[in-house]
């Protein structure tokens, strides 16, 4: 060490303020990303776990549906002997086992689960059919049982199909075209700018996922930033450095904000990956293929910023106020609920809501994303909600900065 005393950092501290803020930010980012817990919750979670989870759910749902379709069900026929043509046709239906049953046994056999459903054919079916009269057919089922319902459903489908075939034969017998029985041909035509069924689903869960991941992605980081430093005793060291408290809180805020934005952007990427996995995931997602318009992406990104500022500000406030991380966590629980509630509500209400809703924190912002994804905007709503979330974000940040100037919350006495 040199015995001379030099003085450093004199005079021009104002000019260095920006660079100190940057220094603090860079150091926090370095520390944050050396922490395996952050890597797990911010990167691996949304990019690997979420897609895997959704893919898993999709796989289970689709295989289950497939199984249901091919499962063999047993039905009883009352009066099959008097209606041989009908019986023969029913025996052709795939995955349906047909058994004769007496009218008195029918109900009991269903109750014992020996039969899934029973079709009661009229004894004079062949005559009615020959006379072009409607034949009354009863389908007996146990409404409280899934297999029975499925069997009844298959019977109905089978009879509908048979009915169409019979009509066709009758028309042919009178030299009439099959078109006579179809006065309309109906076709759904989805409009171009609107969302498809996949983006409808995405519009429902994306705002929620976004809010949850933005919040949960930075909870740990935010609590670590001030409450954690107080707990470990490093904050005092930082407070005696030439960095002003404003530099410190803004540097830390920027670091939390970065984590927050990264977490929410990656969660969107994760969701998009999930929806792009064709085939096994969601039937409705793979039907239309996913199409995110640039506008939808732009609006979503635009909304993430004020939302993230709000969350980072709120959590940093909690982190500053609490004496240690454990205390901070007790404040986070109710805060999480307050954030989740509006996000959940956004899943269940449509995009066509009253404008005052735009002013509800979080909810307004999530509705904007929903509107953008479904392609139906209300510019006034967007402006209101966006403006409101900027105001909330500014309030949260200002409060966090103010609180950080208070020595009573920073220093244990």
């Amino acid at each position: 060490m040199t015995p001379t005393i030099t003085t450093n950092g004199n005079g021009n501290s104002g000019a260095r303020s920006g660079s100190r803020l940057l220094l603090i930010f860079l150091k926090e980012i370095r520390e944050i990303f050396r922490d395996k817990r952050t890597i797990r919750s911010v990167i691996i979670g949304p990019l690997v776990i979420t897609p895997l989870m959704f893919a898993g759910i999709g796989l289970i749902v689709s295989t289950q549906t497939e199984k249901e379709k091919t499962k063999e069900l047993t039905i009883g026929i009352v009066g099959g002997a008097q209606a041989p043509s009908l019986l023969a046709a029913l025996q052709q239906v795939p995955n349906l086992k047909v058994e004769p049953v007496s009218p008195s046994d029918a109900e009991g056999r269903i109750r014992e689960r020996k039969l899934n459903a029973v079709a009661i054919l009229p004894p004079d079916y062949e005559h009615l059919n020959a006379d072009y009269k409607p034949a009354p057919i009863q389908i007996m089922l146990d409404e409280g049982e899934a297999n029975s319902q499925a069997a009844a459903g298959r019977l109905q489908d089978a009879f509908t199909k048979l009915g169409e075939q019979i009509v066709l034969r009758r028309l042919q017998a009178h030299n009439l075209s099959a078109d006579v029985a179809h006065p309309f041909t109906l076709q759904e035509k989805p409009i171009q700018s609107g969302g498809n069924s996949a983006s409808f689903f995405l519009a429902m869960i994306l705002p929620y996922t976004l809010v949850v991941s933005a919040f949960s992605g930075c909870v740990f980081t935010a609590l670590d930033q001030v409450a954690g430093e107080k707990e470990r005793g490093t904050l005092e060291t930082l407070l005696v450095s030439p960095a002003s408290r404003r530099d410190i809180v803004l540097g830390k805020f920027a670091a939390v904000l970065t984590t927050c934005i990264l977490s929410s952007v990656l969660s969107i990427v994760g969701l998009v990956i999930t929806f792009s996995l064709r085939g096994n995931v969601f039937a409705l997602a793979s039907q239309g293929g996913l199409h995110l318009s640039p506008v939808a992406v732009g609006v979503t990104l635009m909304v993430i910023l004020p939302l993230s500022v709000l969350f980072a500000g709120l959590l940093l406030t909690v982190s500053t106020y609490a004496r240690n991380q454990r205390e901070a966590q007790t404040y986070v629980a109710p805060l999480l609920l307050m954030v989740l509630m509006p996000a959940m509500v956004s899943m269940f209400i449509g995009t066509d809501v009253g404008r005052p809703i735009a002013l509800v924190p979080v909810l307004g912002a999530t509705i904007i994303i929903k509107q953008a994804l479904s392609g139906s905007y209300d510019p006034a709503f967007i402006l209101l909600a966006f403006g409101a979330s900027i105001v909330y974000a500014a309030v949260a940040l200002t409060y966090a900065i103010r609180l950080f100037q208070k020595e009573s919350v920073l220093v244990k006495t």
Partner: protein
Amino acid sequence: MIEAKELSKQFTDKKRGVIQAVNQVSFQCSPGEIFGLLGPNGAGKTTLLRMLATILQPTSGTATVAGFDICKQPQEVRSHIGYLSNSTALYERLTGREMVAYFGALHGLTPQEIQQRSEEIFAELDMNDFVDGRCDKFSSGQKQRVSIARTILHQPPVLFFDEPTNGLDIITARSITRFIRQCRNQGRTVVFSTHIMSEVEALCDRIAIIYQGRICAIGTLEELRERTGKRAFEDVFLRIIGEDDEA
């Protein structure tokens, strides 16, 4: 280099009401001097040092540190001090070298200055074999050496040590007292707080005895002995704070 003028600090505690942690404290301390603050736990030593280091704002009174007013120019004050306490910790996920460099940069040192001075200090404190490891892996002695490097890197003219040897083993404690003496010999102003009598006897040029937020006496060890008529320093201390049996 340090001049405290009637510094006072009150805290308001929910349970205990208003607490006068530091009460009208005035003293002066010059370059090349180790000024000892001796007092029992809770006497107000830490609060006093925190005010001088601008972590806390005085309720009344003020002080100048290295020529700057702690109330009006806190940032200037912080640029000219080094502060080491037994509770100042390191950033666990930084290496020792990064930790020192971070605070050097906050003090406005250039990367070249940081590099050059770190090398000197690491060699002097024998830190080269561990300084590139992460701070959470260090022993308490290694941690304290990193803290010392952090405290001195920007070559501050004023240094505060708040019970720096608390909870450390004798070898580490010795290296710290040696370091404090070295700072004095380099012409720095050193304020050193402790409740350990022997450290005060061994290190301090002048001593302030602080009790219940007030300074009860200031002087060299000899002056305090003369004033109390006691020889053993423990007796001197107890007589001054008025807690000895004879009083």
